[in-house]
């Protein structure tokens, strides 16, 4: 990267000649106001806020006003930010924006973290000269997640640029013109994009705000905040949680250059409301009665003393919680809380990433891939932010078109105009058509075994020493040639797969392709999606298969079963569960929401959610990331690992000094399990980082908050687990990037303050990328190609293969309990190809009987022409269908008919 010397108000500074001047000035720490520019969206030059004076040479004393975002950095560029004319112009732009802007600040949700407020103060504009009327609008209902208040709009274009151009959405648009542009839908209705929630951060004013926050509104300065990790899928996007008065209020994006970047998905942003669900368990329950903590621990202690204790871990519980359970029951009595098939898939992924030459891609790597094959995954529903990154990846290869015309990469609309619809190669082979298909070069829908066969064939086309797949159709051979050529021609090819198909072959085929590419000298990356926030972590714990727990219970080698943060009724059919539970004498469950498993428990211990706990998750990339508690519960809720520790002490297995703080536990865990050796590096320890306030220095009411209970201000809760404090008081020194509780800087109250924390705007946070990658590819060359190639899928007479169809809202367990998201859940259905439906004699929305995996359901028919013949679809994870282990063959019969009829395929 070359460096240019530019002069800003006569000071020589170093800047990147591939950037525009606004980007450079902000990275150098100058306070230059802007609206329409965004590091992820580039420059369009609409708002005119970032004007500076540019001088041609030393003799030019008058200079010319230019927009910094539209002016390239070049060697010798000379500008002035402080020039009087530039200052006056920037204030005049604010004056223009204020003509129509309502005097809403006191009642506007954005107030206190409003970019418009910040920029107004920054320009010095103060008094209002405009005395005429303001244009007003009727607002739209856009769904339960995003609120609409158009009067506040300053026409910066960011919303439609993000929604349509960046995120690929269609139903938000700009209407009308002049000073009354309207950003909305053609009619009221729920915004269709899974990324609509980012509008609340992208919008610099209060047009788009968090509708869930609105129900329990709190100003940003009044929130107690902490750095957290999203729990709603395996990507581990970094978030900032905010609470007040002991209840969780909202989540916002926390910038991580390698993971989520600037954006979250709606499930991650709005799923947090499960923490405040009426289903929360906040006190111990002993035989369904509320018990005191001492009573509960006494009972737990005596159960433990009886011996024969086994534990079932969880892919949504932290490493620390899983480890504590594992230590308590012993490694041989610690079992995976997922079906055996899933554990096998997870361990397959581990093996692939450990033994082979392909590297596990970060989301940043995903964005910069220039040829991608997705094999057997619905990325938009399962790992949404990866889909957002993939939408940017298809622009990589086409940047050469803009380069050829000497159009700078940051000149966004000019680049898009030159590139038009050209996209880099993205191939999607899945069991049903996915929302990402609209940017794909080629798509292919088939049953999982056929997807695997396609993958193995592509690997063979890349490297003839990889096993062959004979008997494929000419159309498939053409597709295989197209895909293999594209992957071989790329600088950064990427394979995406995952566990959603529940097919080991599919994942092995994806790995095969990546390995074949590596062998051909093309360093391919691999990305496997995982369903839950700590699936990867659980598998690193080396749990024994769930079926062995069942066996242990059946053979009476288990008296007490401890279930950690897991609703087993979602993992296995109810009949199996009931039999299982009858086989144990004591069932202890640690969890946060009431569910069928807690209902069956003798002892329920209230486990802390992510908001009430510190811990570590390992995301699907293999990155261990630490999340921190934001609120100190006033109830008996505490981390699962603390319950297990105290139970162990109560039973006399360990003494009080064991694991007094999180760091002790992490040290023990990292020492005992080499695979987790890097966990301590995920975040600094309690003592290493001083004292960091969770509360901003305008946090109000601290001394009066509990005065109705007692006028004596209570001592702030202690935090032995981290350097963060439940306080407004910070120690000196810079905050390490993994511990930043909120982004705020003087004059920058909005989320744009993140600029001040990055080494360069759009680059990693100062202090480096956070989290610790746990797996890197092997340097050994001893890996072998997979040779087990499945046979071609054959539709079975009288039966259909049920595959899971994923939904961003509904397939994930916790977010379903969020009040906003609960309004967006699909109704249970069974999806059929219209030809199949016609043969069965059913129409859309009619009921049909589905018998699978020992269970029977009456479900509404949904027609999907993208489903292959012989295949039907069920919404994944949606009760009451969540315990059906898919894929599975099923029988279908129209209501009233006895036998299903199915003609020739």
């Amino acid at each position, binding site marked *: 990267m070359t460096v240019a010397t530019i002069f800003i108000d006569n000071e020589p500074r170093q800047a990147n000649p591939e950037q525009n001047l606004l980007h450079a000035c902000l990275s150098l720490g100058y306070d230059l106001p802007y609206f329409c520019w965004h590091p992820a969206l580039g420059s369009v030059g609409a*708002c005119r806020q970032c004007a500076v004076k540019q001088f041609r040479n030393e003799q030019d004393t008058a200079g010319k006003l230019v927009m910094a975002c539209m002016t390239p950095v070049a060697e010798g560029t000379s500008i002035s930010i402080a020039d009087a004319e530039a200052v006056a112009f920037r204030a005049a732009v604010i004056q223009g924006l204020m003509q129509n802007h309502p005097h809403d600040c006191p009642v506007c949700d954005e107030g206190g973290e409003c970019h418009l407020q910040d920029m107004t103060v920054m320009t010095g504009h103060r008094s209002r*000269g405009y005395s005429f009327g303001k244009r007003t609008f009727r607002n739209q209902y856009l769904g339960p997640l995003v609120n609409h208040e158009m009067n506040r709009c300053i026409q910066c274009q960011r919303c439609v640029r993000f929604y349509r151009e960046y995120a690929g959405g269609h139903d938000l648009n700009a209407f009308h013109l*002049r*000073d009354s542009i309207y950003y909305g839908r053609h009619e009221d209705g729920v915004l269709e994009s899974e990324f609509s929630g980012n509008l609340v951060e992208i919008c610099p004013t209060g047009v788009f705000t968090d509708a869930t926050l609105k129900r329990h509104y709190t100003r940003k300065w009044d929130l107690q905040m902490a750095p957290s990790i999203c729990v709603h899928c395996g990507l581990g996007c970094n978030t900032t949680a905010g609470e007040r008065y002991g209840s969780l209020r909202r989540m916002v994006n926390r910038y991580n250059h390698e993971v989520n970047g600037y954006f979250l998905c709606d499930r991650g942003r709005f799923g947090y409301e499960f923490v405040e669900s009426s289903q929360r368990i906040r006190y111990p329950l002993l035989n369904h009665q509320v018990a005191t903590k001492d009573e509960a621990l006494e009972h737990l202690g005596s159960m433990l003393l009886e011996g024969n204790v086994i534990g079932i871990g969880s892919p949504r519980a932290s490493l620390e919680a899983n480890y504590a359970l594992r230590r308590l029951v012993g490694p041989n009595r610690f079992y995976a809380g997922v079906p055996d098939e899933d554990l096998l898939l997870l361990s397959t992924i581990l093996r692939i990433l450990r033994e082979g030459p392909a590297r596990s891609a970060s989301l940043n790597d995903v964005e910069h891939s220039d040829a991608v094959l997705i094999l057997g995954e619905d990325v938009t529903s399962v790992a949404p932010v990866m889909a957002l990154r993939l939408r940017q990846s298809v622009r990589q290869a086409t940047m050469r078109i803009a380069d050829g*015309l000497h159009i700078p990469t940051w000149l966004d*609309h000019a680049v898009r105009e030159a590139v*038009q619809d050209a996209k880099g190669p993205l191939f999607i082979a899945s069991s049903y058509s996915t929302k990402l298909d609209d940017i794909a070069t080629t798509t292919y829908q088939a049953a999982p075994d056929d997807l695997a066969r396609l993958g193995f064939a592509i690997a063979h086309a890349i490297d003839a020493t990889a096993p062959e797949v004979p008997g494929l159709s000419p159309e498939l051979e053409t597709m295989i040639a197209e895909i293999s050529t594209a992957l071989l021609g790329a600088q950064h090819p990427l394979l995406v797969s995952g566990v959603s198909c529940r097919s080991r072959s599919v994942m092995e085929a994806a790995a095969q392709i990546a390995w074949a590419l590596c062998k051909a000298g093309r360093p391919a990356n691999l990305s496997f999606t995982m369903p839950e926030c700590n699936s990867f972590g659980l598998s690193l714990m080396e749990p024994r298969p769930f079926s062995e727990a069942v066996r242990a219970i059946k053979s009476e080698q288990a008296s007490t079963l401890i279930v950690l943060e897991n609703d087993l009724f979602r993992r296995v059919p109810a009949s199996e569960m009931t039999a299982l539970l009858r086989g144990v004498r004591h069932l202890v469950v640690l969890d946060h929401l009431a569910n069928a498993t807690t209902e069956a428990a003798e002892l329920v211990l209230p486990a802390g959610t992510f908001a009430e706990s510190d811990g570590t998750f390992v995301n699907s990339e293999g990155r261990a990331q630490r999340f921190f508690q934001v609120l100190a519960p006033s109830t008996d809720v505490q981390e699962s690992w603390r319950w297990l520790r105290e139970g162990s002490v109560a039973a006399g297995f360990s003494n009080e000094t064991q694991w007094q703080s999180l760091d002790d536990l992490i040290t023990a865990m990292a020492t005992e399990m080499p695979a987790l050796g890097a966990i301590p590096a995920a975040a600094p320890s309690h003592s290493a980082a001083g004292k960091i306030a969770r509360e901003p220095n305008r946090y109000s009411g601290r001394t009066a908050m509990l005065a109705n209970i007692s006028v004596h201000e209570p001592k702030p809760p202690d935090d032995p687990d981290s350097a963060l404090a439940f306080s407004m008081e910070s120690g000196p020194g810079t905050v390490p990037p993994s511990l930043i509780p909120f982004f705020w800087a003087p004059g920058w109250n909005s989320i744009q303050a993140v600029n001040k924390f990055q080494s360069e705007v759009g680059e990693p946070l100062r202090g480096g990328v956070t989290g610790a990658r746990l797996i890197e590819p092997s340097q050994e060359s001893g890996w072998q190609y997979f040779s087990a190639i499945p046979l071609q899928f054959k539709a079975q007479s009288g039966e259909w293969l049920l595959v899971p169809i994923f939904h961003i809202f509904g397939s994930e367990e916790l977010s379903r309990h969020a009040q906003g998201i609960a309004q967006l859940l699909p109704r249970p259905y069974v999806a059929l190809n219209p030809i199949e439906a016609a043969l069965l004699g059913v129409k859309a929305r009619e009921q049909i009987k589905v018998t699978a995996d020992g269970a029977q359901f009456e479900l509404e028919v949904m027609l999907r022409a993208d489903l292959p013949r012989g295949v039907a679809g069920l919404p994944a994870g949606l009760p009451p269908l969540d315990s059906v282990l898919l894929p599975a063959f099923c029988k279908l019969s129209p209501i009233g008919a006895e036998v299903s009829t199915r003609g020739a395929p």
Partner: protein
Amino acid sequence: MEKPLTGNFRTDREAVSLAEYERAGGYQGLRKALLMAPADITELVKKSNLRGRGGAGFPTGMKWSFVPMGKDAPHPKYLVANADEMEPGTFKDRALMERDPHQLIEGMIVAAYAIEADIGYIFLRGEYECSHERLARAIAEAQASNYLGRNILGSGYNFEIHLHASAGRYICGEETALLNALEGKRAHPRTKPPFPQISGLWGKPTIVQNVETLCNVHHIVSKGPEWFRHLSRTEDGGTKIYGVSGKVKKPGLWELPMGTPMREILEDHAGGMREGLRFRGALPGGASTDFLVEQHLDTPMDYGNVQKAGSRLGTGTMVVLDDQTCPVGMVWNLEHFFAQESCGWCTPCWSGLAWTEKILFAMEQGKGGSRDLETLTFQTKFLAPGNTFCAFAPGAMEPLQSALKYFADDFRRHVDEHRCPWR
């Protein structure tokens, strides 16, 4: 004097038919051009000193010289006729299209050939229904006669023209906003660079040219650049279709040598002011040009001279202000139009024009104050070239800034007397 542009016009105002057009020498320019090398045609146009007649006056040959040529150039290349004539006071292109549609078509084909364009569009103002009908017929006739289509007149050159009626809005006349509109996007302008010659319609090399400009092209090829230069009375080549509207005796259009003085147009051709009215000023080239007043009446109406006088030739169609019409009211009428047509992309334009229009309206109602006068002056500086995203708002300020200069007393009277003195 020679009138290459309007010489064929029929007195009954019907369109010149193909047969009549050919009899008068039509499509001979095309035949001659097809025997030349494309780059040579551009040279001819450069030498002719033809400048864009849409308002900006950019040298046409130079504009074409930036189009990448040769076998490595991106294709398809486009030639677009900007027929979105919406400048208030301008109606010259309408006459050209209604009265002699084949002239525009021939000009387009020659221009397209010069830049090796494959596809042509006429972006036509939607309200020009008569032009639409006559152009559509002429295009079909040209197609049938092999002036358009594949292997034109056996030359091996292929070119097709599509006629597109705009869905509306003045900003579509801005060449890059036009391209966005043609692509089906919102009609706001694009930044330059990159210029349309590099990344234009669908990201491909494109020339957008005004109707009147194009109508000159094949004449230059037919009769040569020297002939074209000699038509003019000054440095800029060719004739110009001048127009006059306002309270003159004979408003209308006249094809005259480029550089004809303003007084001559107003008095000799437009017949001078109506009985009882005196000349106060005129916008020489449509609504978005600065007022010229009595002291400027001898200005030769070409690009350079009008600029020296403090205005712009623009489209060369004058809007005349008489002494019985309120200048503030006239400027309000214009600013009302501009405020209405702001595309909404950049802050100074959409905010400044709205405020300007509201002030002028209030002034006309007798509700304007001194601060409002200051604001008006402020807006003329705020909405300056470079401060805004395109030239629309600076153009909108031209009548206002010149009115504030030349009719300052009239503005002052509105404020001091709390009324419009003309009512």
